């Protein structure tokens, strides 16, 4: 399969990339790792006459802690996340997530920024970033702005990014002590999109009760879903099986999955409940509370 014809640009700076996006408007698409965009173009399900490859812009690949945040450059490859000691030791929820994205060969190209900016509710990072309360940094003609993850996903393949904006950084608030997170995904085979998947992030108080809770669901509707009701329920409760069972029920109740060859709506909602329960239990264990 061969994509329809397009012009290709490989700007060497963000400024040049933004100028190209401004010039071409809706006709342009940003190419980062290309592992979602190129398959779409090959299947002719997506369309762009101008591709702006940001892969050659220096300084957009990093993983570091700074100013109370974990900062991930938009072009950071999934494979880099997978191999990072910082991620493995301090942000295992992100390791959980990257390990179930596509497959190891695809992860050598796929980028964290691309996974989010693509706006696909079937992608895995969105749910995790919702659970973590991340912020996304976008740079455009008017400069830089920060978008809370809760305001980022607008619809199916639709995000808060303007056509001339580029997602340059993901910021995750460094979790306080007694925090833990996990991502649990049900997939039919390696590389598949989730039948159901859930991310959970918890912070426990000194009394052992839950102080902060974040939940995100993958493939549970037209946009990545934040488990708001379940999060509210969890605050102040003990991190035990009974609490988590109820929170999982509340999260799954909010899910509106679509029936496909992976299963019926009822089955997927039930699996969303099971995955949420498992993610919460693992998160609590990592937070030192179970």
């Amino acid at each position, binding site marked *: 399969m061969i994509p329809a014809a397009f012009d290709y640009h490989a700007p060497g700076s963000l400024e040049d990339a933004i100028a190209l996006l401004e010039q071409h408007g809706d006709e342009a698409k940003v190419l980062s790792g290309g592992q979602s965009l190129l398959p779409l173009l090959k299947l002719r399900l997506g369309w762009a006459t101008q591709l702006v490859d940001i892969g050659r812009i220096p300084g957009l690949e990093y993983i570091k802690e700074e100013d109370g945040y974990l900062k991930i450059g938009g072009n950071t490859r999934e494979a880099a996340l997978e191999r990072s000691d910082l991620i493995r030791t301090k942000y295992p929820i992100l390791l959980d997530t990257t390990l179930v994205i596509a497959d190891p*060969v695809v992860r*050598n190209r796929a980028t964290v920024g691309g996974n989010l900016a693509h706006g696909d509710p079937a992608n895995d990072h969105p749910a995790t970033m919702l659970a973590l309360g991340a912020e996304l940094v976008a740079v455009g003609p008017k400069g830089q702005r920060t978008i809370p993850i809760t305001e980022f996903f607008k619809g199916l393949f639709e995000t808060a990014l303007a056509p001339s904006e580029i997602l340059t950084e993901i910021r995750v608030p460094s979790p306080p002590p007694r925090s833990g997170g996990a991502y649990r995904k049900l997939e039919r085979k*390696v590389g598949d999109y989730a039948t159901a998947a859930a991310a959970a992030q918890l912070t426990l108080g000194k009394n052992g009760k839950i102080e902060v809770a974040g939940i995100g669901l993958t493939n549970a509707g037209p946009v990545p879903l934040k488990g708001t009701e379940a999060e509210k329920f969890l605050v102040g409760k003990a991190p035990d099986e009974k609490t988590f069972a109820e929170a999982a029920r509340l999260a799954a109740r909010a899910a509106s999955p679509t029936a496909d060859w992976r299963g019926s709506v009822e089955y997927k909602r039930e699996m969303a409940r099971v995955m949420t329960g498992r993610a919460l239990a693992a998160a609590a264990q990592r937070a030192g509370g179970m």
Partner: protein
Amino acid sequence: MAQHTIHVTINGTAHEATVESRLLLVHFLRDVLGLTGTHIGCDTTHCGACTVLLDGEPVKSCTVLAVQADRKQVKTVEGLAENGNLHPIQQGFWEEHGLQCGFCTPGMMMTSYALLQRNPNPSEAEIRQAISGNLCRCTGYVNIVKAVQHAAANLK
């Protein structure tokens, strides 16, 4: 039809070519350069038959544009053997019969080659994880794992 002049080093040889923007790396390798050892299986980024090394990392060349390889190094299955001698990876697949029809083998070997560069002593679980993006519809993977273990032993 946007055209680009690209400079790519493939298996140690510098190539200059003028390519269309939309030309995929796998088509560049197969149709322009005649390096048909790299296979096209699914064409949808799943099967890994088209795996090559791009700057040392295994990638699916059906999902990389040829222009994206400009000023980069590519290694294909044709670049494994040296002076007519099979590379230990190839030897491993030969000795352990790590194939049946052979279609997935080039990609399988490129992924395994990169794994052993990074991790000379992989466990069976690590081998299986590393090749999880390369599908084999014949073997059930048992002999492929043995082939990689054979190569690991011989590369020491």
